[in-house]
């Protein structure tokens, strides 16, 4: 049993990173993730690590590029506009296959937007916000305990696959506080030796970390194919999802992160009213857990996607469902969040429409 402590989400994530051996953090202030650099500025020196307040998000992600190539477990965090600035560096890190963790505590957009929670950076995180064909492993925790656990796991997946990992949180997750059990870090995978590290060429040939590959045929095309093979392997090995009361569900809600937590309450309320509702909550957004959706599309009569955007996550749900089941939508961007009652109302209207349709058939 680890010690239980009460911390804000941003601090929980930072402490989990420290526990997992993260020893380099670079970041830049932006609301609602300021507690991460604040916490790290105090904590890193305590454990012999390095905290750098960068001059920009661009500099921060490039410091991560250098720190990762130097062999450190490293991390940067930001919120939406700042993560946009990091995209250049993320593309380079993915291209160079360097491990690191990037956290995005999303806020309202586009532009400077606002500082309320949002899920409108789904495309940027999951489809690739920078240039080129690359993938990030994207994690979407829905509680602070899960945030703590996934942050530790994220460093293992990053090292194991030599790939950047992103935690796609939001302002609510970052700002809320709940008790978290501080578990000691234990690797979940047998981690490979870091044979790419630039630490001086003593006793070996010089190493190069680079992303410029001018020759097409045996160079950049081959490198892209290598990356795609790795991404396929990750897709086949890593897919996390929570299913809640889906076995007999007529109406299955699809939601991730904090929205899924609210949706779970709505499912309970619907069940209390006799409506067979259920929830599929992807924990990895990439790789996307297709299987639960494919199964649910066969048994449920309708699906409902709930997200804090005008419809991004829904595209992956529809791809998985592939027309086998109607998919309704409830979502808005700009700082809107659903309450259990709003979701319940939507479920009830779907159930009523479904009953009318059945009656019509009779």
């Amino acid at each position, binding site marked *: 049993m680890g010690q239980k402590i009460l911390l804000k989400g941003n601090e929980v994530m930072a402490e989990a990173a420290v526990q997992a051996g993260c020893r380099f953090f670079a970041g830049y202030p932006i609301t609602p993730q300021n507690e991460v650099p604040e916490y790290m500025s105090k904590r890193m020196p305590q454990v012999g690590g390095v905290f750098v307040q960068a001059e920009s998000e661009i500099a921060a992600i490039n*410091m991560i590029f250098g720190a990762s190539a*130097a062999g450190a477990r490293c991390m940067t965090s930001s919120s939406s506009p700042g993560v946009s600035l990091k995209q250049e560096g993320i593309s380079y890190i993915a291209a160079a296959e360097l491990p690191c963790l990037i956290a995005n505590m999303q806020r309202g957009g586009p532009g400077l937007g606002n500082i309320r929670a949002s899920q409108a950076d789904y495309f940027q995180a999951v489809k690739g916000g920078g240039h080129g064909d690359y993938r990030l492993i994207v994690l979407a925790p829905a509680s602070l305990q899960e945030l703590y656990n996934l942050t530790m796991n994220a460093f293992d997946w990053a090292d194991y696959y030599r790939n950047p990992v992103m935690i796609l949180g939001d302002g609510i997750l970052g700002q809320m506080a709940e008790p978290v059990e501080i578990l000691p870090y234990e690797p979940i995978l047998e981690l490979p030796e870091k044979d790419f590290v630039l630490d001086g060429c003593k006793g070996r040939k010089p190493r190069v970390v680079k992303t410029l590959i001018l020759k097409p045929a045996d160079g950049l095309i081959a490198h892209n194919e290598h990356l795609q093979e790795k991404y396929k392997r990750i897709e086949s090995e890593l897919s996390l999802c929570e299913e809640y009361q889906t076995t007999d569900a007529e109406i299955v809600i699809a939601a991730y992160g904090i929205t899924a937590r609210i949706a779970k309450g709505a499912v309970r309320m619907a069940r209390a009213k006799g409506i067979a509702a259920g929830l599929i909550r992807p924990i990895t957004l990439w790789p996307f857990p297709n299987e639960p959706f494919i199964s649910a599309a066969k048994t449920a009569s309708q699906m409902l996607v709930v997200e804090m955007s005008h419809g991004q996550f829904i595209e992956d749900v529809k791809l998985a469902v592939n027309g086998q089941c109607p998919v309704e939508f409830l979502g808005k961007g700009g700082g809107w969040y659903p309450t259990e009652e709003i979701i319940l109302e939507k479920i009830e209207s779907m159930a009523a429409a479904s009953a009318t349709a059945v009656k019509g058939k009779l």
Partner: protein
Amino acid sequence: MPNLTRTEVLTDAQTHYCPGCGHGIIHRLVAEVIDELGIREKTIGTAPVGCAVLLYDYFNCDIIECAHGRPPAVATGMKRVQPDKIVFTYQGDGDLAAIGTSETIHAANRGENITVIFVNNAIYGMTGGQMAPTTLTGMFSTTSQDGRGEHGEGPPLKVCELLSSLEGVCYLERTAVSTPKDVISAKRAIKKAFQNQIDGKGFSLVEVLSMCPTDWKLSTAKAVDFVNNEMKTAFPLGVYVDRS
């Protein structure tokens, strides 16, 4: 006696640089210094975006190639994780003084214990001769065809002068490679900049005025004259800061 033998810090690869380009000389100076200080096996260099992007083909030490303008940030991460290693950046004028100005100023002001070799040839070489932040007033480039300053381009940006106001900086010197005397002086400065890092003294930058005959559209001899007559006037040589 000058060292006339090949240094093991450089590979046998033939460089891609144009005839009369200064990069070959500057590579050699950096390599000789690394050799003389006996630090090849603990040195990590950063390659910029620009003509020197293929640095890793020529230097026989660990190299990380960075996004355009970001070497000081990458070097910060690299050096902070491994303070016992020697980290240098090798950057052109577009990289260091345009797209990477912010990274340069802040790495300098934090006093990062790194060595920066700044090659100033007043032009974007690799992309074909566009205006650099250091292009001289009145100078032709493919994006300042009436001469810099005619259409709101502003005057050239002077890096050593700009950075000399920063209290975090240890050492700034502007040198050139357009005469044998300058080459010897540039090597002395580069060696000092590496020695400062070994001694933990902080941010050291050596600016090297260099020739680009191809994009200046001058003969190799006239390109040397251009550095001696025009560039040295706009960018006076000398030590700008020395807190070592």
